[in-house]
């Protein structure tokens, strides 16, 4: 399980209750637990929804699932009245390679997820919240189930929560292994007991979502931040980050660093410092080669591109993404050709197969890169890979296609020379894949 780590540069908001036994409800209450939902209810039935949404807007919180959409704004899109019931859906599918922050939240502070979901429900007028965890997180699901049962036993969930006259129920749900189910519309399909094939948009989930009711879907970290923001105030939270990027974020630093771990850093924190100070630098004093800044979907940065602040806008400006906050560090021994192949193997394996550009595109990129990797490549293969990836961009049914194409383009554009050299027999880096390997995903 991800271990608890700390560093003096951390700014602690979300991690405040980590390592303190807060999975136990009485301990959570001692640490201001369920105070935020009561603060919201104290605003009075009339003012409460507006007050919550205004606070969320002023906090500058942007979704921690990957796309960075402003949370307060998302909530404000839900129609006030609806013939169909409204829902809150917490996305705990966490499957983006390089990302393990929600894992820690479920283990260390499950009640923050419950309380955040309740507050989201109060804001939009939903009576039911779902917390969906990936199937592999069974031990964490059991922690969440225990927490939900404890909250019911205290009367915090169910009918007339905290004397508000409003009801709120929570249902926990397990997945069964599928990266694509983390995509919001595929997630709703899965929760409705179907294959995780995405839905066409519009209509957006805020209008027509789960069981055709208006639904807000947020990442587990986004939701776990909500109680903290209500307690400290939106402006105070916003002030911790940079412009348009409020607050702090859990960054998972993994790969070739001395001290991998999940660190809470203010938005806009220097990527260089995150690697060299917070995570203790490149392992064994080696040279840095590249960084994948926000999970496998994010285009790679070269070692000379790390003087950048970790927020959504600065990463976008640099042609990459902040994504899920999973920073993967590669030292000089890594072969980018191999790393690119391993990345596309993942996407080829996980493509849901519904639309052709993604299903065929990921497969052909994988096949072409495999040929290059095995020594049978020609220079035009690099162009082919780039051509396929460019033609997937924006042409797939859901954003998965972009998520597969973008990192591929990053590798071949930023490390083109390395691919060319490789094809000419001058291989950089040390191979990590065994020679006799069953390529993951063959035959699905």
């Amino acid at each position, binding site marked *: *399980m*991800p*271990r608890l*780590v700390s560093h003096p540069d951390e700014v602690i908001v979300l991690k405040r209750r980590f390592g303190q036994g807060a999975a136990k409800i009485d301990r959570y209450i001692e640490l201001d637990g369920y105070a935020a939902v009561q603060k919201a209810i104290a605003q009075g039935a009339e003012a409460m929804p507006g007050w919550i949404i205004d606070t969320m807007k002023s906090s500058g919180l942007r979704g921690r699932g990957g796309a960075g959409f402003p949370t307060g704004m998302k909530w404000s899109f839900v129609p006030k009245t609806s013939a169909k019931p409204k829902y809150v859906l917490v996305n705990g599918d*966490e*499957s*983006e*390679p*390089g*990302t*393990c922050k*929600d*894992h820690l939240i479920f283990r260390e502070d499950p009640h923050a997820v419950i309380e955040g979901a309740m507050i989201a429900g109060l804001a939009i007028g939903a009576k*039911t919240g779902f917390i969906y965890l*990936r*199937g*592999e997180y*069974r*031990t964490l699901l*059991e922690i969440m189930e225990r927490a939900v049962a404890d909250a019911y036993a205290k009367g915090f969930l169910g009918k007339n929560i905290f004397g508000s006259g409003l009801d709120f129920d929570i*249902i926990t*749900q*397990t*997945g*069964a*292994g*599928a990266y694509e189910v983390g995509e919001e519309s595929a997630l709703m399909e*899965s*929760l*409705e*007991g*179907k*294959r*995780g094939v995405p839905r066409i948009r519009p209509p957006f989930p805020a209008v027509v979502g789960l*069981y055709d009711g208006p639904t807000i879907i947020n990442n587990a970290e986004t939701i776990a931040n909500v109680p903290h923001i209500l307690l400290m105030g939106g402006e105070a939270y916003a002030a911790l980050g940079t412009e348009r990027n409020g607050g702090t974020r859990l960054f*998972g*630093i*993994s*790969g*070739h660093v001395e001290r*991998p*771990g*999940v660190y809470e850093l203010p938005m806009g924190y220097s990527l260089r410092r995150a690697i060299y100070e917070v995570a203790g630098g490149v392992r064994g004093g080696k040279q840095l080669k590249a960084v994948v800044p926000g999970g*496998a979907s994010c285009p790679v940065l070269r070692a000379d591109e790390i003087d950048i602040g970790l927020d959504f806008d600065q990463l976008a400006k640099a042609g990459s993404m902040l994504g899920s906050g*999973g920073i*993967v*560090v*590669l030292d000089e021994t890594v072969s980018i050709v191999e*790393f690119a192949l*391993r*990345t596309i193997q*993942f996407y080829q*394996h*996980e493509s*849901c197969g519904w639309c052709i550009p993604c299903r065929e595109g990921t497969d052909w990129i994988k096949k072409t890169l495999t040929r290059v990797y095995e020594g049978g490549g020609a220079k035009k293969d690099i162009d082919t890979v780039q051509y396929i990836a460019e033609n997937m961009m924006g042409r797939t049914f859901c954003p998965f296609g972009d998520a597969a194409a973008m990192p591929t383009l990053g590798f071949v554009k930023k490390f083109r020379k390395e691919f060319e050299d490789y094809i000419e027999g001058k291989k950089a880096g040390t191979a*990590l*894949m*065994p020679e006799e*390997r*069953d390529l993951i995903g063959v035959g699905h």
Partner: protein
Amino acid sequence: MSTIANSIFSPELAARFDKLVTLYPVKRSALVPMLLYAQDEVGYVSEAVIQEVAQRLDLFDLDVRSVLSYYSMLRTKPAGKYNVQVCTNISCMLRGGYEILDHCKKKLGIENKQTTPDGQFSLEEVECIGDCCSAPAMQVNYEFHDELTPDKVDEILDQYAAGKILDSTQKDGK
């Protein structure tokens, strides 16, 4: 008492399913969890599981099969009592995930997606399991093991072989 006569599941699981189908606005929402929990008990999603789950949810067998084939954790053949799932995705690969996979193959004497003849262990190469900051990582059934070295893997697998580590599906008689 289960609502299904002659249920193939234990009374505990049957009771749990009775409750599960009433939980959601739409019964079918129970499908994915039911298949996974059934697999935990039966060992895999057998024909009998498919039929009973379909019956409980008023679905066609075909609906169940279609969903079943989508999710990578659901299997239609038995696995070992301990299913060893080694992550080789990016963060793990960088810290020796393939070495760990290779070591498991040698130690267990089986290849990827195979089961030992005694039915104790099966081995699977898997994608990211959400433990990247403690890479390399693996799961044995639902239990996480990480910061792995070949020696540590030996120790862990020996303990499973000796019945010393129980995974969460086997705790509380579930």
